[in-house]
């Protein structure tokens, strides 16, 4: 009985994973091939989405610059040359 539960759980998980990818794949249609109604629906929140993504990526870019600047000097100061 335990095996049945596990196997059913596995099938449910597999279906959920396939469904998630079907959903993603069907949404990510190149713009010139998507129906006009789909584009209109998609473009509603685009400027806001782009603004949020730009702020997020700018924050991450700043973090990476700090990492690049600080990493090697910090290694040399803390551990010296190997």
């Amino acid at each position: 009985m335990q095996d049945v539960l596990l196997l059913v759980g596995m099938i449910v998980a597999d279906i959920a994973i396939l469904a998630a990818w079907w959903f993603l794949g069907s949404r990510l249609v190149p713009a010139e091939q998507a129906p006009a109604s789909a584009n209109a629906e998609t473009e509603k929140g685009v400027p806001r989405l782009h603004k949020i993504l730009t702020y997020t990526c700018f924050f991450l870019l700043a973090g990476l610059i700090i990492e690049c600047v600080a990493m090697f000097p910090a290694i040399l100061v803390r551990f010296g040359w190997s």
Partner: protein
Amino acid sequence: MVVKDSFPTAQAQPVEPATKSRWVEPADGWLAAGVFLCGTMLLGPFGAIPLIIGLVKLRRSVTAGTNVRPWAATVIGAFCMIDGMINFMPWSLDTFAHNTVLGETFITGYGRFFDGAFFIDYNQGALGGVENHTEKMWQFLAVFIVMPMRVVSAWAFLQMKTWGLHFMKVSSWLYLMLWTGYTMALSLDFPERMATSEFGIGWWLFNLFYLSPMFVLPYLYTVDKRQWNR
């Protein structure tokens, strides 16, 4: 009589195309220099200056309305490019130059700070460098496929090339695959890797900055692709 294969007249000569500017934005040279220097990690302190100058100049052109490339594309492209470089260069340092003083100093120093796999039994494995087999597998995947692809696609994306936008999408999906596998590897080996480093927050730091595909893919699939026409 009609001579079929007559010599071309002056009018038939192909018109010399107008000289294209080298880069989309004049400040892209600063941006490229900064990203490449920062991306080496070893020369990072020297790269921040041109990178910041480039970003400031690009921002000013956006404010003045003289920009060709959207500011969002500049930020996202620069972020992806520097992210690709800082993974490509240090990992290739470990792959090809693990016996050098510079390579060993940097890689084992990073290992002591953040990830024990880059420090414990260093240079003891068959391929040299990192001994951890899982790490070595991801390293080869990253050095030969994902990260160089990421760097070139980000630069082509910044130059508004059609293939740049396409390759950014492809490399983002590959990056997502790498992130999933790498996170699993780090989590499963946590006692030997993160727990032996000086900072226990390494896992969280890693997962914050490596989430780039999550932030970039939504942009790539909603952007007006007609702008990438070079």
